[in-house]
């Protein structure tokens, strides 16, 4: 079909946004978008065609063996291994690309870091899908690597120093979601240090040299003290940082050389030859020196992200690309006019694609909990500058436009809404939502700035720099405010809290005593007593997920250091301490509360049907739950239909939500991170509601073992919000979004028909005004009709690019499991009035 206004209109009518994108984007973007290998796991397994990259683990292992007898301290050995990988890995440049760099040796590879955890290495051995052929050769190599790292991996090293009881409970997979490793989680970055154009790697190397020289001189003056002893460690840390930065510069120069070789020996098209020479000039300049234009700025950022992911498994991508790349966009497009808007869109669109393809081998809980994507690359747009003025710029709009052209499911955007955002920018956000991307999610900036100050004491100027550290949680990008590692296992499967009230803490799914041994539930005489048992279990579960993280963080500087991340962090360059050292961090911890609303609906059901109406006894209910409601269907339906449900502006159940949040918030102040700061909760789910479906037993809200859990955060149960969008917002607004927790995810579905045209925008705008006025911190939308979703279930091959918002992230609909698909379809479509 030729690209005519009519044909586009026709496609728009059918809401076939992915075909529209294909027709509107440049030939380059079209090639690059189709060229990319999708990495997100489908259900629990990696898609066909992907292979585990064995090059990196072989390089890593060979260098580790070589260094075994070296006199270097561990941090320097670690830096040298990283440098060895960067110096020797295979690199490639894809046709038509202008940005370069990938973790693996070929585009279809998933990289595997065997130095992280032996249990992850065993998953590689067991992988049924993506070991390279010939299998016997691969297995021989893999086994050699696994054998070498057994007992030497980070997890092996820290476990002897952890509480094994807590660790085993976490590693059962019932309540926690991760491991307490500093090299596995969500790494914030000190963008104010590294991304403002004031310095780049060579400047930092010069600074490190000065510090090493000064420390060396001081350490050899005629004196002796604890401080002098500490200098030896600092010198090692600084040396290690320097090794990684120098390796980064060499790695970039390898791309420059390859680009020149292609231009001078293979490429026949003069235009492409010139592009290759531009890539060469870019990679000769960054990351050694600060960027000078948009392409260099994006390439510089990409290199930093890749180096950091060479050093650690990063499950998130905290970023604020419009804020940090915006000045270069303005300069190139509007001041120097060396790029047209279309040329800039090509670069911005490719930047999204380069992020989309990043992949690292992850364990099952992560693959299943983040179906369809690699990690939560939630990029932050909009917001305010440290002085409070609007931070939106031309790059904000370019990113929103590029997202509609390339339609990747990862990264997604979250937009920091505030009252000064222009109508032009809001329309671009709306257009992305209307076109079914599921992003940007909308964040209430004034509320979240206040929240950052309330919970972690960030000064207002720092709080205003915030980015999403993972799906939802704000973290500043400043020297002391950024958090270098938020370990995923401070994630609690909170539906277990109410489940454990009925089992006195015993987990029947994993055969372990995990929760607190509260008295038998049938002995409780009042709702208050019952609720107190819930509070006890809540404290127990939260402590269980937090303690290992605190311990892991404290052990990290010595056992699992991060010299590269330290090298791009002002506080480490200045102090000589590893970036994870809690003494140089203000702290920005949070507990992700998966499956939270099940607690509220269950408590409400017990209060009403057991204590108020006395229709059932706790003993009866305990038995029904233990038998997964079998033989008690009528009773189960009573608990589903005749108990009040969250999200309907009903004070009976909404007040229970507030009681639970107040108790959790109070306890959050008692839980301390190693920096001495609080652990507020943050209800949200990713696709944990499906992953945990078979891990959470029957619940008093009428749920059976195996049923999908609610889609998360403070979103009402699918189909249970029967009183319309305003009632949902009214329920959510009863929560204090500053003091009750760190953030609260809210999923809503809108009708695509209603969102059409100017009328749709005005409706959406009115909805957003109500949302903002009510002080709710988050909302995200799915705007795809049931009809389209069901058609995609029937003919998935016709809808490969259909995107939906899962929870905290977006995914291609065909890449998520049937159960997750059904769960999204079940969500109530809210008609706006």
């Amino acid at each position, binding site marked *: 079909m030729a690209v005519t206004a009519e044909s586009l209109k026709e496609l728009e009518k059918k809401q076939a946004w992915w075909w529209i994108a294909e027709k509107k984007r440049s030939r380059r973007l079209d090639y690059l978008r189709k060229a990319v290998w999708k990495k997100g796991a489908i259900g629990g397994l990696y898609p066909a065609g992907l292979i585990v990259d064995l090059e990196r683990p072989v390089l890593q292992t060979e260098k580790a063996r070589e260094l075994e007898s070296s006199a270097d301290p561990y941090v320097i050995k670690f830096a040298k291994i990283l440098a060895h990988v960067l110096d020797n890995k295979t690199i490639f440049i894809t046709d038509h690309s202008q940005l370069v760099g990938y973790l693996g040796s070929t585009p279809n590879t998933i990289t595997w870091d065997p130095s992280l955890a032996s*249990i992850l290495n065993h998953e590689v*051995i067991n992988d049924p899908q993506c070991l390279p052929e010939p299998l016997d050769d691969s297995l021989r190599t893999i086994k050699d690597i*696994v054998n070498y790292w*057994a007992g030497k991996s980070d997890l092996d090293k820290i476990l002897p120093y952890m509480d094994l009881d807590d660790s*085993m409970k976490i590693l059962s997979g019932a309540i926690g979601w991760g491991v307490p490793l500093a090299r596995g989680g969500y790494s914030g970055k000190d963008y104010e240090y590294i991304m403002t154009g004031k310095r780049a790697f060579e400047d930092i190397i010069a600074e490190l040299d000065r510090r090493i020289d000064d420390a060396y001189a001081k350490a050899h003056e005629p004196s002796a003290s604890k401080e002098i002893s500490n200098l030896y460690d600092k010198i090692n840390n600084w040396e290690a940082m320097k090794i990684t930065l120098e390796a980064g510069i060499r790695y970039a120069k390898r791309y420059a050389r390859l680009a020149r070789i292609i231009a001078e020996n293979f490429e026949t098209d003069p235009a492409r030859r010139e592009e290759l020479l531009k890539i060469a000039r870019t990679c000769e300049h960054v990351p050694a020196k600060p960027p000078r234009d948009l392409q260099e700025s994006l390439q510089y950022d990409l290199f930093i992200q890749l180096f950091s992911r060479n050093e650690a498994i990063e499950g998130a991508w905290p970023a604020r690309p419009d804020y940090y790349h915006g000045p270069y966009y303005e300069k190139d497009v509007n001041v120097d006019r060396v790029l047209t808007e279309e040329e800039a869109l090509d670069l911005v669109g490719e930047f999204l694609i380069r992020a989309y393809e990043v992949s690292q081998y992850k364990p099952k809980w992560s693959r299943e909990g983040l179906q369809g994507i690699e990690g939560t690359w939630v990029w932050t747009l909009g917001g305010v500058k440290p002085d409070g003025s609007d931070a939106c710029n031309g790059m904000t709009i370019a990113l929103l436009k590029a997202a509609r052209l390339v339609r990747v499911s990862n990264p997604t955007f979250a937009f920091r809404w505030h009252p000064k955002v222009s109508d032009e920018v809001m329309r671009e956000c709306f257009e992305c939502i209307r076109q079914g991307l599921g992003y940007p999610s909308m964040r209430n900036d004034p509320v979240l700035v206040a929240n950052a100050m309330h919970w972690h004491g960030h000064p207002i100027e720092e709080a205003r720099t915030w980015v999403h550290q993972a799906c939802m949680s704000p973290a500043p990008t400043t020297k002391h405010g950024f958090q270098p590692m938020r370990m995923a296992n401070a994630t609690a499967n909170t539906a277990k809290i109410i489940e454990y009230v009925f089992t006195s803490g015993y987990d029947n799914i994993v055969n*372990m005593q995990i929760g607190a041994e509260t008295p038998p539930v049938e002995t409780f005489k009042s709702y208050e007593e019952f609720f107190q048992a819930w509070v006890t279990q809540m404290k127990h579960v939260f402590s269980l997920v937090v303690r290992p993280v605190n311990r892991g963080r404290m052990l990290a500087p010595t056992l699992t250091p991060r010299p590269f991340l330290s090298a791009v962090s002002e506080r480490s360059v200045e102090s000589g301490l590893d970036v994870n050292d809690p003494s140089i961090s203000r702290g920005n911890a949070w507990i992700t509360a998966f499956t939270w609303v099940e607690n509220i609906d269950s408590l409400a059901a017990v209060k009403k049907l057991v204590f108020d109406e006395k229709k059932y006894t706790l003993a009866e209910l305990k038995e029904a739950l233990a038998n997964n409601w079998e033989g008690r269907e009528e009773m189960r339906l009573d608990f589903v239909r005749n108990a009040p449900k969250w999200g309907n502006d009903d004070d009976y159940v909404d007040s229970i939500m507030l009681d639970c949040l107040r108790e959790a918030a109070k306890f959050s102040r008692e839980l301390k991170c190693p920096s001495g700061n609080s652990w507020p909760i943050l209800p949200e789910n990713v696709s944990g509601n499906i992953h945990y479906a078979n*891990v959470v037993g029957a619940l008093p809200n009428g749920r059976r073992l195996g049923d999908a859990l609610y889609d998360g955060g403070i979103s009402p149960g699918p189909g249970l919000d029967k009183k319309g969008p305003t009632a949902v917002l009214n329920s959510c607004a009863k929560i204090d979004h500053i003091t009750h927790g760190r953030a609260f995810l809210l999923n809503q579905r809108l009708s695509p028909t209603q969102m059409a045209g100017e009328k749709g925008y005005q409706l959406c705008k009115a909805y957003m005004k109500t949302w903002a006025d009510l002080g709710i911190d988050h909302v995200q939308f799915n705007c795809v009709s049931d009809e389209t979703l069901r058609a995609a279930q029937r003919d998935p091959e016709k809808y490969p690019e259909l995107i939906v918002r899962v929870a905290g992230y977006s995914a291609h609909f065909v890449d998520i499991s049937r159960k997750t698909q059904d769960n999204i379809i079940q969500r109530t479509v809210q008609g706006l009035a």
Partner: protein
Amino acid sequence: MARMSRDEYAKASGVFGVKPGAGSAVEDLDKVPERPCGLCKHCLEVAWSSDGRGSCNVLKEGSDITCDPPVFVLEGKNGYMMRLLTDASRCTYYERNEFIDKDGFECSDPVFRRFIRQLRDK
């Protein structure tokens, strides 16, 4: 479980995976016995990973089905930790499972799913 020594605990849980110096231990990770625990209906794969750990729904902590004669402990709280490829030929409680889903594209179900390569075609 906390009453065990740390080393005993670690071995029982398999949380450290294969220890260095264990000789052919890594090779063993590919050997599928005639009656592996992973094909028994009482085996629960841990929800966390596919690294091959699991627990038994019938046998409790203190059991050992690999020694001769085997030790069966049926009372107690915590389940017996084993690996999916543990040889259960001596286990009298073994009941082979009928699998309903082996393609691995639906989400985990600790009761019915073990999607490790070694058991793929079993």
